[in-house]
């Protein structure tokens, strides 16, 4: 299945190296993954640091065990302290 990964701010360095055809924007890549891949498996696969993150799939919060499906957009944002 093909999904989009959007990693914001400091996390964009963890986007997989891909060809130009997979580059959707500076912080978004298209990626082929095996059917049944979960959010948590993508986080492990890409090596995201174990720090607080906001994880959305198609605009809604998604837990690590959520299974991705064709065309999903997984977006990860790392909030930083201060308020």
């Amino acid at each position: 299945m093909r999904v989009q990964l959007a990693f914001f701010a400091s996390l964009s360095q963890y986007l997989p190296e891909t060809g130009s055809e997979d580059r959707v924007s500076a912080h978004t890549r298209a990626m082929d993954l095996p059917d049944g891949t979960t959010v948590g498996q993508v986080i492990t696969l890409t090596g995201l640091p174990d720090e607080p993150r906001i994880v959305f799939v198609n605009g809604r919060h998604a837990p690590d065990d959520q299974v991705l499906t064709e065309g999903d957009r997984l977006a990860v944002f790392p909030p930083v302290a201060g308020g």
Partner: protein
Amino acid sequence: MPFVPHPAPALEEYEELRRRLRAARVGIVGLGGLGSNVAWMLARAGVGTLALADHDLVDPSNLERQFFFSDQIGLPKTEALSANLRRITAGIGLECFQTHIDESNLGELFGDVHVLVEAVDSAHDKAMIVAAASEQLPGVPIVAASGVAGYGSPNDIITRHLMGDVWMVGDLVSEASVEHPLFAGRVAVAAGHQAHMTVRILLGYPQA
């Protein structure tokens, strides 16, 4: 993109804008440098009801950038802020929750807000509040902030529509630390962004 001003509203439309803001209910989670300043800006903008949550008391260090006064040290932030907001708008509707907000109570306490402002301090709590709001308050716009500390340019603080119902204010990277403290001006810039994005959403202009 060039700035395109909205057409000046006719008088009856202006009254409609005021009416919409008076009818609005906005939740603010965290009453520190962001939340306490967002609150007074929304009060002055004419938002009718604010739901305010913070478990903490006013500390002397808060006076560097938060909307409290020296004779309020030791008071619950909810109580002190309510008193200050009523000095601006005597009739403003206020609901105060002097408690820590997490996934166990967010949906219950903020179930009827039109916009939720995330204004907490730690990265962990920011992620938790946004996740809980997305799950428990579906369709409610969340105006959050990340990256407001330090000496960086005020011009790096911007508002983005991040994803789903989440708008994000800040430079995204300037984390508060001993080396990068929170300054009144830069935090107030971010608070102004959050308050004005909230007003825009309430008035039907959701573009960041």
